[in-house]
C-alpha cells in the first residue's frame, strides 16, 4: 500500500473508532436511543472550500469548538442543527426535570461526545489526549469552520479533515449532527507512527 493511501486508511480507522465511541456515549445520554453513524470521510480540504464542509455555509448550527493537546493535537468541532438541539434535550432523561440553560446542556454534551471520541484515539496509541473546555457558538456553519481554522496554526492552504456524521430517528425525520476533527499537521505524522507501532507489532 502506498504511504499516502495507508495514512488515509489509518485516519479513517481512527475516525471509525472515534465516532463509534462518541455515538455510544451519545446514545447513553439519550436514554439508549439508537445513534447511527456514517463511515468517516478523510479529506484534504482547500481553505477556499472549508466553509462548505457542513453543506450550506449559511446554515445556523449550534457548534462546540474543542481544541485538544497531547500526542495528537488539533481541533474538534461538534455541531447540531439548531432545531435538533431541543429534540436532543427532550430525549435526555434528565432534561425534563432539570430546568437549565440550553448552552450548558449542549456544552456538557459536546464535552462528553468529543472526549469519548478522543478516548478511542487514545486507546489506539496509549497517549493521553486532553480536550479543553468546549467553546460554544450559535451561528452560520461556514463562519464556525472558518474561525476554527483561523485559530489553528496553518502553514499552507489546506487542512486534513476527518469528517463523521451521526443521526437518530426523531418522529418522522432523521436528526443529524457532525463531529469534525482537524489534526494539526505537525502532530499527525507522530500519531500515524504510533498507531502503526501499536497495530503492526
Amino acid at each position, binding site marked *: 500500500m502506498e504511504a499516502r493511501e495507508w495514512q488515509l486508511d489509518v485516519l479513517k480507522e481512527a475516525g471509525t473508532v472515534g465516532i463509534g465511541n462518541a455515538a455510544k456515549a451519545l446514545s447513553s445520554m439519550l436514554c439508549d436511543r439508537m445513534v447511527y453513524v456514517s463511515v468517516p470521510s478523510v479529506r484534504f480540504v482547500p*481553505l*477556499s*472550500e*472549508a*466553509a462548505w464542509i457542513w453543506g450550506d*455555509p*449559511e446554515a*445556523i448550527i449550534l457548534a462546540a*469548538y474543542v481544541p485538544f493537546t497531547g500526542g495528537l493535537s488539533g481541533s474538534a468541532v461538534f455541531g447540531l442543527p439548531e432545531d435538533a438541539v431541543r429534540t436532543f434535550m427532550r430525549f435526555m432523561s434528565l432534561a425534563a426535570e432539570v430546568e437549565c440553560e440550553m448552552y450548558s446542556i449542549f456544552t456538557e454534551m459536546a464535552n462528553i461526545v468529543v472526549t469519548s471520541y478522543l478516548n478511542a484515539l487514545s486507546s489506539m496509541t496509549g497517549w493521553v489526549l486532553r480536550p479543553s*473546555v468546549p*467553546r*460554544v*457558538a450559535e*451561528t*452560520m*456553519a*461556514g*463562519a*464556525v*469552520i*472558518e*474561525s476554527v*481554522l*483561523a*485559530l489553528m*496554526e*496553518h*502553514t*499552507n*492552504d489546506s487542512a486534513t479533515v476527518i469528517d463523521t456524521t451521526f443521526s437518530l430517528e426523531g418522529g418522522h425525520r432523521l436528526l443529524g449532527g457532525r463531529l469534525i476533527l482537524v489534526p494539526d499537521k505537525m502532530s499527525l505524522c507522530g500519531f500515524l507512527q504510533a498507531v502503526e507501532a501499536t497495530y503492526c507489532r
Partner: protein
Amino acid sequence: MIEEIVRTGEIKVISREGCLTALGVGSCVALVLYDPGRLVAGMAHIFLPFSGNGHKSAMASSFLPAKFADTAVEALHAAILKCGASTGGILAKMAGGANLFDSFQGQALDVGKLNGEAVKKALSEMGIPVTGATLGGNFGRTVRFYLPSMRMKIVCGFSREASI
C-alpha cells in the same frame, strides 16, 4: 444580476452591475474597494492578519491572494485598478472580524479583531477612506456588495441585518 461568490482567501472584481458575496464570514473580513466614478468594485475575503511573523513561512506556500490582510489590501487595490478603477477615487467598506468563541475568559486569540485592525492599518497607509464598516460581535455574517447601488448588505442569521 451576476452574483460572484468570493471564497476564503479569494479576490473577485465586478463592474457596472452585479453583486459580490461572501457567505458565512466569521473571524474573516470581507473587504470591498470600489470606485464610485468608474463603477468598479472588488472584494477580498481575508483569513488572517499577517503574512509574516505569527504564521511563519505561510506566505511562501500560499496561492490565495487574500489570505493575509497585509498583502490582500494591496492585491485587491491592484486588481480593481486593472479593471478600470482610478487611483484617486477609491473607497472602502468592510464587514466581519467576529469572535465566535468569545465566552472563554478571553483566553482564545481574537483573530477577528486582529484581522479588522490589520485591514484598517493597511487602508490608512494607502490613504483609502472607509465609508462603512461593521466589525466584531460573536456571530457569523453573509456580506453582499451591490453595483450600481454601492450598498453593502449584511445578514447575520436570526433577524439581525444591516445595510452600510
